[in-house]
């Protein structure tokens, strides 16, 4: 992976802003779906698809590609929009999200959309699938990396910790997990529903290398992924502190935006704010 020049970071930030706008438009058209998580993870998805991943949108089955596994499938609007921007499929197909016959299922499905590495939605089982892929790569002496994007809420699932224990045991250094630490879930704040802290200490206890970053600082996130590549004796988790609803003032940090789409008039306000922010970013 290339190191980053300031102008490249600016370019990624502009791309992230465009992706956020498309997320809003896609969700309004769909009429249902999740808003806060996708906006909160947009910077990280942009960093992956436009800088970190070894991939070829024209050859999604290329065997040497890095694998990006989305464990918390409900934030798939950000993955779909980012994939469309990266060239996996036409942007106009985004308007089919959640509609009959669409390849863009309400939760992502591997068999219908090339580039989706696994089907997800039910929480807590992405990391173990990623571990299986990491094992297979190791057995076959393949050099690609496995990234698993997870939510903080799904850390309440037993299956998740079985996977953490297993990846630690197997020392899967080709596996990097990214936790979207946005502190919210459907019913409220994670620390009220079922506390996850101290999260860093929990991973360390299971023999993982742990990094924490600001999930909206694209340069810092990419540096953390670079550090993960340099760790050879254990898997790495990057706890990315994010703001749910990032970029839209009235959505930020409000858990009621977890599982609903904006109405048309709300979308207008959101898009106006995003366009203004894009103008301020400059070139």
């Amino acid at each position: 992976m290339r190191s980053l020049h300031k102008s490249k970071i600016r370019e990624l930030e502009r791309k992230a802003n465009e992706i956020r706008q498309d997320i809003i438009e896609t969700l309004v058209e769909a009429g249902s779906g999740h808003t806060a998580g996708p906006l909160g993870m947009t910077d990280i998805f942009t960093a992956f698809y436009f800088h970190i991943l070894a991939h070829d949108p024209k050859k999604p089955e290329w065997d040497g590609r890095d694998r990006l596994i989305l464990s918390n499938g409900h934030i798939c609007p950000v993955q779909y929009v980012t994939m469309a921007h990266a060239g996996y499929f036409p942007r106009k197909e985004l308007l089919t999200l959640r509609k009959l016959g669409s390849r863009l299922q309400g939760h992502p499905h591997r068999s219908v959309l090339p580039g989706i590495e696994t089907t997800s939605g039910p929480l807590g089982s992405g990391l173990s699938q990623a571990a299986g892929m990491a094992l297979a790569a190791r057995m076959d002496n393949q050099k690609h990396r496995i990234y698993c994007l997870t939510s903080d809420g799904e850390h309440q699932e037993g299956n998740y910790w079985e996977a953490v224990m297993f990846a630690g045991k197997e020392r899967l250094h080709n596996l990097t997990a990214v936790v979207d630490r946005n502190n919210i879930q459907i019913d409220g704040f994670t620390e009220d529903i079922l506390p996850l802290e101290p999260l860093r200490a929990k991973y360390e206890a299971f023999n993982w290398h742990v990094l924490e970053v600001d999930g909206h600082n694209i340069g810092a996130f990419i540096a953390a992924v670079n550090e993960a590549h340099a760790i050879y004796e254990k898997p790495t988790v990057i706890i990315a502190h994010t703001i749910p609803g990032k970029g839209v003032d009235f959505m930020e940090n409000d858990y009621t935006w977890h599982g609903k789409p904006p109405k048309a008039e709300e979308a207008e306000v959101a898009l106006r704010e995003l366009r203004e922010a894009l103008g301020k970013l400059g070139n």
Partner: protein
Amino acid sequence: MLNKKLEPNKKIFSDDIEQVPTRNGFGEGLVLAARKNKNVVGLCADLTESTRMDAFAKEFPERFFQVGVAEQNMATVAAGLGISGKVPFIASYATFSPGRNWEQIRTTISYNNSNVKIAGHHAGISVGPDGATHQAIEDIATMRVMANMRVIVPADAIEARKATMAAASIVGPVYLRLGREKTPVFTTEKTPFVPGRAEILWQSKKKPTVAIIGCGPLLYNALLAARDLEQEEGIGSIVINSHTIKPLDEKTILAAAKKCGAVVTVEEHSVLGGLGGAVAELLAKKLPTPMEFIGMQDTFGESGSPSELLAKYKMDAPAIIAAVKHVLRRI
């Protein structure tokens, strides 16, 4: 009489017929499949010896993964391996896998169409003294309702070995159901085994009036019942080994139901949703036929010896004879 074309064990009705658990056939089949295909891998949830995965683990240590007592993780790690070109076999007791990890199997294996083979061991009540917690009687039902899933229940150890090797060659998810106890080995190396094709084990010389359709080791009791029905009661029957419950061999079953006019299903499983359910669904649609169901009658099992339990819960040969007489009275 026995269908000689299937070349059954010549000692089939003798007291000294060889007895081997179907799980042993699984263990042998896994090693043979692994020797043929380097992509076959095995995962076990802390039951390596009792699921007979130990021989595979010993011969292919680099392809064996001990996941600990974590069946949900076992299923999902296997899903990831299956997506990545491996042919994973996962093994535990059926109450735990596919019991505890049902949703993981549904989403990450079946819906994903990942190439995973699920070996559910110690199935049925003949696990015996361990009691109802360890007696899987729902697994055929919970697996066969999943799209993409195939379900195979081998009748003896030799058939289990063939079924395991066949599962490795099938592309897509397969559920294999295996038993703990020693049971009669009534097929031979030469007996044909084709997934999805039922075999007629017995056809009376006298005109058959009942089709006994079974799966798993209880088929031996069905054969004893068929022999006694013909010799002692003058009732002719057909006995079908429907080892593949999904996809069901509709042609063979419909032909037998048509010929006989009455059906008894036999399985060491709940009468709800298993082989009996699959046959009833088929006949209700295509050829309504009076039926009786041998199996667990919507109840849990308990501790006891296998033979005591099979007698108490009416799955032995006398119970099959009684079910045949009962269904014939309804015609």
